[in-house]
């Protein structure tokens, strides 16, 4: 297999931009109409993801050891979308047809067999990983809404129960899908440590124009059904560390940190914990009563609420990163930061500026920005 030739041909094809994935999916759906149901109505994001995945794969095509873990993740992750081994040859055929179409005269038999061989390896790794994953967990979990509590017009706390046990670490998240918004999977963090009854809490904030978040925050009822995918995420608690703990939560970024807090409270000798909980206005501190109850119960826990845009608020005022920075020196703490993009970045900067080593900071970026 000539890796350079693969890369060159892909670079040539990629020049055609969005037309390439458009052609690919149209070809796939024409030959295998049943695969259309595996995708959402709008394919705009999907096309972007496909090109991204192809670009990563092709640039590492001569470096299978780097590529393997990525492909394995991809293979496992595709289970929840309903992808099965039988789909892989169909995808391979459409991929080759697409490449041939855009290469035009540059498409030779050698090139075709190189691409076929490369795809064969990729598919094999993905299918194999999916098959191994099948042995110890379902493709997705069916979940039932046990409780749905609206805390503000755009913030809700849900409790879901899953039928099959779902193992996860506090601080991790799962992707979720509703039959009301088919094929749109979005990530949400569990807000509690694992419970024996397999129920999980989630904090949902409605994003402006967010298809799934608005449904979860406002359209969901007790008894409603959702699907959830395998737990992922690296914002997990370092139980080996002897350091005290700083938790910084912006809005519903609180969820994973609350799970970590619950894990810490189960320890024999908990470290000192400072939890900063910030929102733009006081009614955004949707879980404060519960946090204050915990603070009253645990002498090792300090909870500091802060708001950025309400002059009359009796507690800390200002942007959350500033409040954290001026409230102490955190050099000897393990910091866990979670919330809107800008807030997470700014908090990171403040902590690094204070001299907190980077390896003592773990973050979860919720990907939206505070309005």
């Amino acid at each position: 297999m000539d890796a350079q030739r693969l890369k060159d041909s892909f670079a040539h094809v990629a020049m055609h931009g969005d037309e390439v994935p458009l052609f690919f999916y149209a070809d796939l759906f024409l030959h295998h109409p049943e695969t259309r149901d595996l995708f959402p109505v709008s394919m705009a994001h999907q096309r972007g993801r496909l090109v991204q995945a192809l670009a990563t794969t092709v640039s590492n095509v001569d470096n299978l050891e780097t590529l393997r873990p990525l492909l394995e993740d991809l293979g496992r992750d595709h289970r929840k979308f309903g992808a099965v081994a039988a789909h892989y040859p169909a995808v391979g055929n459409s991929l080759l047809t697409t490449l041939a179409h855009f290469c035009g005269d540059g498409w030779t038999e050698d090139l075709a067999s190189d691409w076929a061989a490369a795809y064969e390896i990729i598919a094999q790794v993905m299918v194999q990983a999916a098959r191994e994953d099948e042995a110890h967990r379902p493709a997705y979990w069916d979940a039932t809404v046990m409780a749905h509590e609206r805390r503000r017009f755009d913030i809700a706390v849900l409790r879901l129960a899953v039928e099959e046990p779902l193992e996860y670490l506090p601080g991790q998240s799962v992707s979720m899908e509703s039959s009301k918004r088919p094929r749109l999977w979005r990530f949400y963090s569990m807000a509690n440590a694992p419970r024996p009854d397999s129920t999980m809490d989630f904090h949902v904030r409605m994003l402006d124009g967010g298809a799934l978040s608005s449904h979860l925050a406002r359209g969901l009822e007790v008894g409603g059904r959702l699907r959830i995918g395998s737990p992922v995420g690296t914002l997990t608690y370092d139980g080996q560390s002897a350091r005290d703990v700083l938790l910084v939560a912006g809005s519903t970024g609180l969820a994973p940190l609350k799970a970590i807090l619950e894990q810490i409270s189960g320890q024999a000798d908990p470290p000192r914990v400072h939890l900063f909980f910030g929102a733009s206005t006081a009614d955004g501190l949707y879980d404060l009563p519960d946090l204050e109850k915990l603070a009253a119960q645990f002498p090792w826990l300090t909870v500091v609420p802060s708001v950025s845009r309400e002059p009359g608020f009796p507690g800390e005022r200002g942007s959350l990163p500033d409040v954290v920075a001026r409230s102490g020196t955190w050099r000897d703490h393990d910091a866990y930061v979670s919330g809107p993009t800008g807030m997470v970045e700014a908090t990171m900067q403040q902590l690094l500026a204070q001299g907190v080593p980077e390896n003592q900071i773990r973050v979860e970026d919720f990907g939206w920005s505070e309005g």
Partner: protein
Amino acid sequence: MTVTYRSDERLTPDQVQGVSFPSARLGRRGFDEEHVRYFCALVERELVTLLNEKASLWEEVNRLRRRVIGGEGAVVGIRPEDAHVQAVRILSNAQLTADQYVADAQQYSRELAEEARRRHDEVLAEARAHADQVLEQAHQRASQAAQLEMSDPGGNGHRDARAELAYLRTFSDVYRTHLRAYLEALLQNVAEWERAESSSLAAARAGLPPPEVPRL
């Protein structure tokens, strides 16, 4: 999505639709967000159109190329490969149209939600400021009424009680008047909001997102 551009990647309509810019730092000038969004929507639409046109041209070039290679008189009717490529193109166009509808709907829902959120914040802040003002005013007037009662020369041991009664009566009068006025103003706001919403809905149906939502 933040604003990054790599020279080896092509810009897609999806990227334009999903682009977000960090807000300008405090004290620095930034562009009006509505206008930037509106322009991005135009750019996205134009990109989709260009891509469609480009795809058609590409097909045409290929068709002509095959015709030249196959010899002039060789082509009678549509060859199966051509038919498939045609089908792919039709499906691609249908998909792009669907994508555009979904993006438009999302955009519209985002604008509505933003507007509602902004109004929610404004109404709350207004209510808070107003409540403080009403309390202060009621207290002042009631104090005056109480003082008047105190200075009444015909008074006796009941003076204190009468003064307090006068204070409370005036206080509740002022408060009630303000509450009534405020509730009426709120109802007025809701009505105006409804009107603004139906007019922006009409604008969206006309295929043009309104560059400016009418302020209440």
